[in-house]
């Protein structure tokens, strides 16, 4: 049966999992880490870096390193989030041809789905290396508040990466799925997700027979582990400035080291009471004089530095419960998601607010990917009891007089669905009406997302409120929204079909898919070459080590001289093959080198 991977495409870190038998397993990357930073960079030489390696140069190559692309995915150029990102990002954000967002790296401009596809492609490679077979299908998670365009953009990113995204599911739903996997439960839970860059709190109802309903979700897209790191960096920089009068922020290399050290110290302090931050040669003051940074950070100090950040998360939790119209006592379990929830102060705050110990049965970094993997397996195995129902992530409706939002299809309605409502004219002798199709939960129309608009004309002239217009919303199984407006008196009708868009055309997506495939082929070729080269170099070094001994053993015998000369020729040919980057030739030479090595070893052991 075809394998489906589950991918948690996070703002700061991503994770991939698969269901093996009945157990969800998180797949480690080549570095052995179970999460991969969602960071993409292009080096000066034009090389693409993804993951840890990209993160480690994020400050020294800030202009060409993209982080938190998820904050931009599926957004329109003129959205406030994009304006904010332009102000705060170190990389260049430009307007795309379809009023979408593009990112400039070196001399090339990339769409946001393209950047996200690089992370997804990396996760795909990690899974393929682990499974030893190609992976084509995936379930990808997104925040519960993502609208249709953002979800479509995530799907497009998957397509560019060569993945058929068979389902997009909400992150808190995935976490709940992993939490409730194998248990038949019926309860209300809170999913407290404090990640690297964002904080989300969702209240869900887990019903029997696999019903997962997101009752409310809220959060802060600019509150996460990086803010905690920043506090530690501030503390280190201030201390150093007091001692030496030097601002380490002015030096990119120093700042990169500070950031790495701060994150490491923060993680360590979840397990120990204090940790030492030791950064030798952090900065040079002049000729032959470099200064070192050495400080001990204790857990209470970190807690004091980040106290307000933790309190902010609690305030947001209160808001989520208010939105869900629930009392804190009605929450039956709290699921922790995100690496930051390992911090003891966070756990204490959660316990304090919810009045119960959070559930620790699931791994906070891995639970979302595991949930996605469980869902992926259920979809291909057609296990109806575990398949999540596809629901509308946000309410759908139209704008009415006074800029109010009138909801037709509520949030979390299972699709396909259809709803109708009758409206009247708002002015005397009104002959046309403009229907603005919107998505969101706000009562104010301008706070929701505009999906499309059309005008119904030919209305009868009458006093306001006398002409009735029937508006029908339909969502089909593919998630395509159709809106019809009809003058109930004269039958005059008009309609629009709203398809979620990532801001990319089909041609653009196809082009990007081709580029991604080419990159993958190139990368695989390079990897094969590197593997062959490493084998060859190991053998060469072994053979060269044996040469003196062989010469001593075979002495002046003609046979020995010939063998040594042949071996030297083989070594030279291998080096030439390596230089010419000819993988096939290097592999052939490896065979010859292996034979030579075996022969040499035999001669030496006998001699």
């Amino acid at each position, binding site marked *: 049966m075809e394998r489906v991977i589950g991918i948690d495409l996070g703002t700061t870190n991503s994770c991939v999992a698969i269901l093996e038998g009945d157990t969800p397993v998180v797949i480690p990357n080549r570095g052995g880490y179970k999460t991969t930073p969602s960071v993409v960079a292009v080096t000066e030489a034009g090389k693409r870096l993804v993951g840890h390696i990209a993160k480690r140069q994020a400050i020294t190559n800030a202009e060409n390193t993209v982080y938190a692309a998820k904050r931009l995915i599926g957004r329109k150029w003129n959205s406030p989030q994009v304006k904010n990102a332009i102000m705060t990002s170190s990389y260049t954000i430009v307007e795309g041809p379809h009023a979408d967002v593009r990112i400039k790296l070196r001399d090339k401009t990339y769409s946001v789905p393209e950047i996200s596809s690089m992370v997804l492609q990396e996760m795909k490679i990690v899974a393929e290396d682990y499974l030893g077979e190609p992976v084509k299908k995936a379930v990808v998670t997104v925040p519960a508040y993502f609208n249709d365009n953002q979800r479509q953009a995530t799907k497009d990113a998957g397509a560019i990466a060569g993945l058929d995204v068979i389902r997009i599911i909400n992150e808190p739903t995935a976490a709940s799925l992993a939490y409730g996997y194998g248990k038949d439960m019926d309860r209300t839970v809170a999913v407290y997700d404090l990640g690297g860059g964002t904080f989300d709190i969702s209240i869900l109802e887990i019903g029997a027979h696999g019903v997962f309903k997101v009752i409310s979700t809220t959060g802060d897209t600019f509150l996460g582990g990086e803010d905690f790191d920043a506090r530690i960096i501030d503390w280190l920089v201030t201390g150093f400035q007091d001692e030496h009068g030097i601002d380490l922020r002015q030096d990119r*290399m*120093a700042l990169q*080291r500070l950031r*790495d050290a701060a994150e490491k110290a923060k993680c360590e302090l979840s397990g120990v009471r204090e940790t030492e931050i030791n950064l*030798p*040669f952090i900065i040079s003051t002049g000729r032959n004089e*470099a200064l*070192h940074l050495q400080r001990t950070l204790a857990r209470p100090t970190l807690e004091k530095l980040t106290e307000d950040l933790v309190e902010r998360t609690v305030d947001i939790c209160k808001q989520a419960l208010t939105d869900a119209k629930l009392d804190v006592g009605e929450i039956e379990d709290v699921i922790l998601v995100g690496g930051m929830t390992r911090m003891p102060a966070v756990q204490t705050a959660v316990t304090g607010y919810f009045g119960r110990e959070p559930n620790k049965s699931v791994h906070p970094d891995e639970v979302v990917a595991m949930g996605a993997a469980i869902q992926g397996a259920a979809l291909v195995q057609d296990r109806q009891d575990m398949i999540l129902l596809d629901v509308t992530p946000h309410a759908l409706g139209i704008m009415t007089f006074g800029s109010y939002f009138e909801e037709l299809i509520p949030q979390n309605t299972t699709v396909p669905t259809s709803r109708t409502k009758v409206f009247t004219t708002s002015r005397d002798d009104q002959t046309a009406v403009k229907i603005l199709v919107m998505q969101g939960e706000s009562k104010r129309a301008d706070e929701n997302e505009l999906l499309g608009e059309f005008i119904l004309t030919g209305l009868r002239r009458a006093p306001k409120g006398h002409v009735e217009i029937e508006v029908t919303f339909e969502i089909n199984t593919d998630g395509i929204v159709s809106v019809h407006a009809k003058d109930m008196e004269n039958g005059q009708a008009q309609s629009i079909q709203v398809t979620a868009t990532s801001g990319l055309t089909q041609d653009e997506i196809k082009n990007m898919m081709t580029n991604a495939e080419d990159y993958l082929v190139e990368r695989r070729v390079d990897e094969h070459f590197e593997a062959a080269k490493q084998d060859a170099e190991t053998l060469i070094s072994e053979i060269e080590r044996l040469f003196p001994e062989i010469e001593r053993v075979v002495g002046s015998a003609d046979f020995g001289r010939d063998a040594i000369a042949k071996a030297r020729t083989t070594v030279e040919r291998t080096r030439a093959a390596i230089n010419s980057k000819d993988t096939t030739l290097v592999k052939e030479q490896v065979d010859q080198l292996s034979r030579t090595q075996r022969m040499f070893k035999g001669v030496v052991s006998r001699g």
Partner: protein
Amino acid sequence: MIKNVRPRPNSRPSSAPPPPASLEPTWDDETVPGLDLDDPLNEFDRVTAIPDLPSEQYVKSVMATAEDSRVPAPGTPPPRPPAPPPSAPVHVLSPDEYFSLDSDPPAAPRSADSTAPYAAIPPIPPNNAPTARPPAPPLKTRSPGVPPQSPSLTGLELADLDSPDGVSAPPQKSREQSRLDPRDPLLELSSDPPPPAAFREVAATASAIADMKDRYAMGDFSGALVIAEKVLETNPEDLEAPRYAQSCRDVLTQMYSARLGSLDQRVEVAVPSDQIRWLTLDHRAGFLLSLIDGGITVDQILDISGMPRLDALRIMYQLLDQRVISLGN
């Protein structure tokens, strides 16, 4: 003492950079531990290749270059720019003028071209020109009655031209000359104002270009690169310096890469972490060390270092040479 001096087919240095492939990748040098190769004060401490010149010629050229470019000790006159050819107009100072920089007009000029306008700034020699020091731009003599405008020592020293081989003599020589026959046309004083700053810059650039070429021809690619970069700082429009700089970078990159071996080797810190601070390193080396996590390769460090590849290669080589790091599969 110069060792292993090897004759080469054509010992005339060429201004055109040789193709990198023709260079010896297994060059050796006596790298000073902790040496900062970017430091201009140390540029004469560097020998990046055994020169392919006859030893006498090599010594002579090194001495001449060192004499020209030596950084002055406090209180000594600044270095002399290269001398113009013997046909250039002569401008010799009296001891008083040399030391007091008096603004009074000097004795009436006798130079035939004393009133001539400033000569056009000579062009930088073409790419295929020999690397011999280029002629300095012709100097102007002062017009009668025109007081010198804030003459600088550098500008006034250009008068010393009696060195037959074009190598500038020390300042004492000028004072001796001043006691010679004043009717000697070579000793004529000019009443023209000293050459403007831009003029002196061009002369300095020409001198630096020549020095760069000499160093390149001698195999001192680091030195040539330092000079090329300095030339580009002052004269970004220069056509030759970028070419030489790039060629030097290519060669040095090849050399350091050859020394490090395969760039796919994994790097490890070979010094216990508590002893690292006792090493003699700068912050850039410290930064590269901080990137080493046991799993990273040389190539990856070069990619993520955020510094020019050549600089990162050089520091990695120095760290390897000092046994601060080790490489392996």
